[in-house]
């Protein structure tokens, strides 16, 4: 198996404002954002013949799933743009954004489509995001909901505590992750947290929700849409923006059957290490080559897990690295793993801030935030053992 590096490129993008609640429907914003991305790529709507995405609404609640309102599928988007595409596909797994990008890569590399629109539309419903009035726990819920183990905050609390206990880490070290994410998010005009940095004291004063997780350890639910246009590398070179190539990828899934939402640390490291190996094999690169390693941070402990499985620091050492200033993107020696603000600094955009930062930096379009050396990027999503990541590259 040999991955075709740099065969497909990102040619343009658009990002909506990220807010608590849109004053229009999610679908309407998605359509406007899609048109903007297509224009940004130097194309017309009628040139888009492929659509890929994940429409997952990541709630544990009992909210209605309504296309165009609480989620937006590729089919909905194509139909409402007035396009009859040759290829439409939705990604089913976890690691939704890298998964959707790979569907687009495959469609373009195979010739199933020429210009593919990848989108992600996320919705923050009225009321409690994860609250669920469940009285009967059936299916997989029967094993854990009656005990009260339910929803992603309990899930990550259990895994994070296992990390703290095993490596003698303390909650205080994580303040550096939150401060870094919010510092960078505060510089981003479309971010929900624009102009609103967070101090370590504010972080440590927040009440605990699922020990050792406090509310700042989880990204805030938002309404937001992002779109990217992908095409062949050859065609991308004739379009207005500098192409950003898909150079490698890694995806993984748990190999052991566990209770729902149970993520033991050993499972995470075992499969995460294999996900990382796949990234290096497909891309021909290693952790030392990454100029813009954008780690997923929907829950803050993911930053530790990705740092370690990727080999950016030894296993069990990420808490020390961040505490010692090792991820300060303003420092010459810091790893810029949250330079795009991540989910903690933008809002619950499910991998979009990571991909967008790679795209903006590698295409030279990051404006005042532009980094001097940015030719190789990595955009991660979800957990290393239950998600994926893409290596992006640009011409030197």
């Amino acid at each position: 198996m040999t991955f075709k590096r740099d065969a497909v490129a990102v040619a343009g993008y658009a990002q909506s404002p990220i807010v608590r609640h849109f004053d229009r429907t999610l679908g309407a914003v998605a359509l406007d954002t899609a048109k903007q991305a297509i224009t940004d790529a130097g194309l017309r709507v009628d040139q888009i013949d492929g659509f890929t995405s994940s429409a997952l609404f990541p709630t544990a609640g009992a909210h209605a799933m309504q296309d165009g309102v609480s989620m937006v599928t590729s089919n909905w988007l194509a139909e409402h743009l007035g396009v009859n595409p040759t290829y439409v596909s939705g990604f089913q797994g976890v690691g939704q954004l890298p998964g959707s990008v790979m569907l687009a890569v495959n469609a373009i590399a195979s010739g199933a489509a020429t210009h593919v629109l990848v989108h992600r539309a996320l919705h923050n419903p009225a009321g409690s995001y994860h609250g669920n009035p469940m009285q009967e726990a059936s299916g997989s819920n029967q094993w854990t909901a009656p005990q009260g183990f339910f929803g992603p905050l309990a899930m990550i609390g259990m895994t994070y505590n296992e990390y703290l206990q095993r490596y003698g880490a303390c909650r205080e070290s994580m303040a550096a992750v939150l401060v870094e994410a919010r510092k960078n998010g505060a510089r981003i005009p479309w971010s929900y947290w624009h102009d609103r940095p967070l101090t370590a004291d504010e972080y440590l004063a927040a009440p605990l929700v699922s020990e050792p997780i406090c509310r700042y350890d989880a990204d805030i639910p938002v309404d937001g849409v992002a779109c990217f246009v992908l095409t062949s590398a050859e065609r991308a070179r004739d379009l207005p923006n500098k192409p950003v190539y898909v150079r490698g990828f890694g995806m993984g899934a748990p190999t052991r059957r566990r209770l729902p939402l149970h993520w033991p640390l050993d499972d995470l490291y075992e499969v995460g290490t294999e996900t990382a190996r796949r990234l290096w094999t497909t891309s021909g690169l290693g952790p030392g080559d990454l100029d813009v390693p954008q780690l997923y941070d929907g829950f803050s402990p993911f930053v530790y897990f990705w740092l370690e499985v990727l080999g950016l620091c030894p296993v069990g050492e990420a808490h020390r690295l961040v505490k010692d200033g090792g991820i300060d993107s303003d420092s010459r020696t810091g790893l810029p793993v949250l330079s795009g603000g991540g989910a903690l600094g933008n809002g619950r955009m499910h991998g979009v801030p990571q991909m967008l930062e790679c795209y903006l930096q590698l295409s030279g379009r990051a404006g005042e935030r532009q980094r001097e050396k940015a030719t190789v990027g990595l955009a991660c999503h979800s957990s290393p053992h239950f998600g994926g990541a893409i290596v992006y590259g640009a011409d030197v």
Partner: protein
Amino acid sequence: MPGRPLPVADDLSASFWAAAAEHRLVIARCFRCNELTHPPDLVCPHCHHTDPQFRFEPVSGSGTVCSWTVLHQSFLPGFDDDLPLLLVDVRLDEGDVRLIGRLLGGADAALRAGSRVTVTFEDLAPGVAIPAFALVPEA
């Protein structure tokens, strides 16, 4: 006031919940490869046999705490009076079988990774009990 969600037994889980109602912990064992699986699945996750004919065998209920979390907020009904709620992630002595349940006896229990626990049961309704854990005093 709605209570806590109750487990709904199905073809795969009926034996587990019937035993739990009698305060017995049983775990599914595949007839073909002899491995334990929890929760049971349509297919054996070890040997991938599509008709694993699980036998639900009694286990000791003794295990080791791998992790825990204390919930200060519940997203389900019926738990508010029990907050903060201490949940433990337990590896059973019988093998790589992990269960999650409440640690009864208060959220301020002196826990560490490696603490020994034994299974106990919470009676939620007539004929419905779910596994929980209690600390085994250290020698």
